[in-house]
């Protein structure tokens, strides 16, 4: 700051003698935060409308006789706010004493201990003593299962209403209500009906105390036991930012981050509670190779050498086109880029793919509409149920657009069409990749009618978009350049392997669908060499001639690209319990052994530089920007 000349459209507010300039209509609480002054509050939440019920944030405002709630009072030019006066201090003392009157003394067994606002504010601002005897506490029900995911402790509740308001404002489902009144007030479900929302997991996070807790996290850890890693949810293509909280080599929970451009701080339960799949699932523990007489455990170095040897023999005997390369959309951009390079440049085969389902004709125009941009559209057309089934958090963005921004949201049923003629307006069309053609047709038709129309195509997996951008496809090079020679897609690769037309397969991080496909086992039987890099045992590991342990997505670093083309970092949240090299390193070593050097260190950052040189849209995007695909994106 420093310049005395103010923005004409800003107002000046003084907080404890610190002056800040904020937009008119800013809440006093936010102005305090801008001034670097912390004001304790329980009921207010950045994503919810103010209610001013906890009174914890009462502050002095010059000229007003009573203390004012900072969370609900709007600034005025020249306003003087004081948060450290004797009057404020005394009231905070009183209010915390009130809050603790009927609060149980079970911090030692409360999941929230160590990250509880009631504990923290009491330590920082509270009286440090109680004047009421423990016998006089009002008791309520404890450990009520509201569903298989959420447990409610009514005694610990301080009635901030965040959960009630969350359901009213964010999901619109109203599953939790206030009941009774006065000191007997409780939050509960109506007639104790179980919660049905698919967004329940956000409740314990907005709860400022230990009243709402995750069933899956109960008694699992203390916050100081956890190592927190910022990453991306691996469960769909929406790319929700989150924190992975791990205790030793186990993930204890996923916690919301707050990226307003993507998940807007809300996670769906499917994603949030998906982490047990990374805890204790059976792993490929050691490299193995078929040596004369059968498969045996070998060193990593030997496994890579044998893999290269088998592939080189087939390339020299049958030519490079006897080899096919298969990845999956669980791979990072860096891995996908290196794998397609390995196929095309090192081995020299056009046969590569990453998914069983044929890939529709896609191009960057299919994700012009950004997730946050949904809110800016006057009209939002959603094609069927598939987009929200694939990416549940999309539902909350649509709800926000409709309720907080007053946008019109229409969910269409097949056959998809939109014929209503209206004033030219901004229209967002959202389709799943299956309905991409219908979505594009509606978009083009609306554009023809003078509207500004953009499409967002929701993909299936965490890096479905990135694998396509990276050209891990038979017909497309990185950056959607047509391949000089279109190779076989995965279904054809499997068929050709089974019939013996293909002689070798290189399979990295196979998807669950591929592992479950009967054609896959036949394919593995049909080829002479199957080099497999995978974290989990399955059809691929069983049929491998060389097997190399791989990493799961929570064990690796790199970038993934979400449905709107946003390039976001995944980080290793846990280490595999055994020494497993990263997939990127294994691929780099394999290339080296095949006679071509990657040219850069097989680490996420240098490989990203390399891929960004090939795909200019990705330049500078690795810190969470959307890839810039020319004028459209």
């Amino acid at each position, binding site marked *: 700051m420093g310049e005395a000349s103010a923005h004409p459209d800003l107002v000046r507010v003084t907080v404890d003698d610190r002056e800040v300039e904020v937009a008119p209509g800013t809440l006093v609480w936010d102005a305090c935060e801008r001034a670097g002054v912390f004001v304790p509050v329980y009921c207010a939440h950045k994503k919810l409308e103010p209610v*001013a019920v906890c009174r*914890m944030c009462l502050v002095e405002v010059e000229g007003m006789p*009573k203390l004012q709630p900072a969370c609900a009072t709007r600034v005025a030019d020249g306003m003087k706010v004081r948060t450290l006066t004797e009057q404020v201090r005394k009231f905070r003392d009183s209010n915390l*004493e009130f*809050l603790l009157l009927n609060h149980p003394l079970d911090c030692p067994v409360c999941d929230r201990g160590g990250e509880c606002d009631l504990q923290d504010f009491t330590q920082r601002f509270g009286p440090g003593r109680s*004047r009421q005897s423990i016998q006089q506490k009002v008791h309520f029900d404890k450990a009520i299962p509201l569903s298989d995911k959420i447990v409610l402790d009514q005694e610990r509740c301080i009635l901030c209403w965040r959960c009630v308001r969350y359901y009213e404002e964010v999901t619109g489902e109203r599953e939790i209500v*206030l009941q009774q*009144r006065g000191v007997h*007030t409780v939050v509960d479900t109506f007639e104790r009906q179980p919660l049905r929302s698919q967004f329940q997991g956000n409740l314990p996070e907005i709860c400022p105390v230990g009243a709402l807790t995750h069933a899956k996290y109960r008694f699992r850890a203390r916050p100081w036991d956890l190592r927190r890693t910022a990453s991306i949810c691996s469960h769909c293509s929406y790319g929700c930012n989150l924190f992975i909280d791990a205790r030793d080599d186990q993930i204890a929970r996923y916690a919301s981050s707050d990226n307003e451009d993507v998940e807007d701080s809300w996670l769906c339960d499917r994603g949030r509670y998906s982490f047990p799949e990374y805890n204790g699932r059976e792993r490929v523990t050691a490299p193995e190779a078929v040596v004369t007489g059968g498969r045996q455990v070998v060193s990593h170095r030997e496994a890579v050498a044998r893999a290269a040897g088998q592939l080189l023999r087939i390339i020299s005997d049958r030519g490079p086109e006897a080899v096919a390369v298969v990845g999956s959309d669980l791979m990072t951009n860096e891995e996908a880029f290196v794998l397609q390079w390995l196929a095309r440049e090192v081995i020299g085969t056009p046969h590569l793919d990453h998914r069983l389902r044929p890939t529709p004709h896609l191009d960057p125009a299919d994700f012009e509409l950004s997730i946050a941009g949904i809110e800016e559209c006057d009209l939002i057309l959603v094609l069927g149920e598939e987009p929200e089934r694939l990416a549940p958090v999309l539902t909350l963005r649509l709800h926000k657009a409709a309720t907080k921004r007053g946008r019109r949201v229409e969910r269409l049923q097949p056959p998809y069409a939109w014929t209503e003629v209206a004033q030219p307006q901004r229209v967002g069309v959202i389709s799943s990749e299956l309905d991409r053609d219908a979505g594009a047709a509606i978009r083009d038709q609306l554009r023809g009618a003078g509207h500004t129309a953009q499409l967002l195509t929701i993909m299936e997996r965490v890096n479905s978009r990135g694998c396509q951008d990276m050209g891990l496809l038979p017909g497309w090079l990185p950056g959607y350049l047509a391949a000089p020679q279109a190779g076989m897609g995965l279904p054809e690769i499997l068929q050709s392997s089974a019939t013996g037309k293909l002689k070798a397969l290189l399979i990295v991080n196979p998807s669950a669908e591929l592992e479950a496909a009967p054609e896959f086992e036949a394919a593995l039987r049909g080829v002479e060499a199957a080099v497999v890099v995978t974290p989990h045992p399955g059809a691929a590991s069983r049929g491998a001639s060389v097997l190399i342990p791989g990493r799961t997505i929570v064990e690796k670093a790199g970038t993934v690209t979400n449905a709107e083309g946003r390039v976001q970092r995944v980080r290793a949240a846990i280490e595999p319990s055994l020494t497993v090299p990263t997939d990127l390193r294994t691929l780099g070593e394999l290339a080296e052994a095949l006679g071509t050097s990657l040219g850069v260190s097989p680490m996420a950052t240098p490989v990203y530089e390399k891929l960004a040189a090939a795909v200019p849209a990705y330049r500078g995007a690795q810190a969470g920007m959307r890839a810039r695909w020319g004028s459209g994106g």
Partner: protein
Amino acid sequence: MEGAQPVPDGLVLTRYQGAPGLTTLDGYRKVGGYRGLARALEMGPEAIVAEVKASGLRGRGGAAFPTGTKWGFLPQGVFPRYLAVNADESEPGCFKDRVLIEEYPHQLLEGVLITAFALQASHAFIYIRGEYRKQRELLEAVVREAYRAKLVGKRILGSDFGCEVVVHGGAGAYICGEETALLDSLEGRRGQPRLKPPFPAVKGLYGQPTVVNNVETLSNLPYIVTEGGAAYAALGTEASPGTRLFCVSGHVERPGTFEVPMGRTTFRDLLELAGGVWRGRKFKAMQPGGGSMQVLGPQHLDVPLDFKAVADAGSSLGAGALVVMDETTCMVEVSRRLVDFYRHESCGKCVPCREGTYFESQLMHRLEEGSASAEELASLADICAGMDGRCFCPLGDTATWFVMSAYRMFKDEFDAHVGAGHCPVRAGVGAAA
């Protein structure tokens, strides 16, 4: 009887007292009912508002806000607008709206219609407390009768003005007398006060501009329209114009409601209208405005029923309920009962009211039993300081007013309870008897 005896021509609300069949349309018409409505429709909205401003009428629900000014807060040109009639009379010691509904229901309805016309409100909702079941049924019958007579509904009395009237029963919560809680309850939500601003005049019932007026306030309208605002104002004094219906209860010989001119009547006059302190006992204290207001003592008996004079004495006329306490009354017990009332009625929305009333009540129970320590009694002021002016709405604030004023005025009596093991006042009375 000495003092200001109400003279029949000085009455407004109860001027038809004793006339037969007032709860029927015929009976009310015989005494001149609905002439005010006809007159209002001729006058037009602006002229009515001018008369109400001239009358100096102030809200009779407790806050005494000037009625004409309140109406003026409605934003220009925003429709529909609503009128909500606050018949959620639940202040301890208050029963005047009940009398106005039971005895003069058509007068209320006429006042409602005049006001709705003045505000150009399309709907009027009479929100009546849940416990007033018979009164609700009576009002419903009166409204039905008025519909049949084309006094309510479309084209009232052949004019272009139409207004629907709905009678809605509450579910038994003191807080629903607070105007925004009333609106939430009326909308079918949990009855709890709303965050202000926006105020109801701007964004009230169903998000539309809304005026909330008390039953007594609106019952004055037929008189003001027919006799003129100046005539109404002249009944009282300049600072406190008009008349008011006071509820006198407690330790008096003849409890009841009494319409008296404002400003020219004293508490002593009211007490005498009610037959004086009962059983020949001595006057000890009084609550001048219902359960929420500060206690006054014998030295205040000659204070006139004037807003400023009562405020100077340290209290308020509130909702117009005078509760009289004789010499045998234990002020700790009265305080405890009132604090229990607020604990029971706290809606639970904000922390200081929800927890503070509970804390207060626990302490007062122990004090009354004589088991509280001096430190505990000393913490009463702290507890109340954490509530007064800190709560979301006035309920929690007022939950401290009586007990704190009683503690100041009768400190010896509170102190005598500390560690006494019993109530010293009652013990003393027992010994004297």
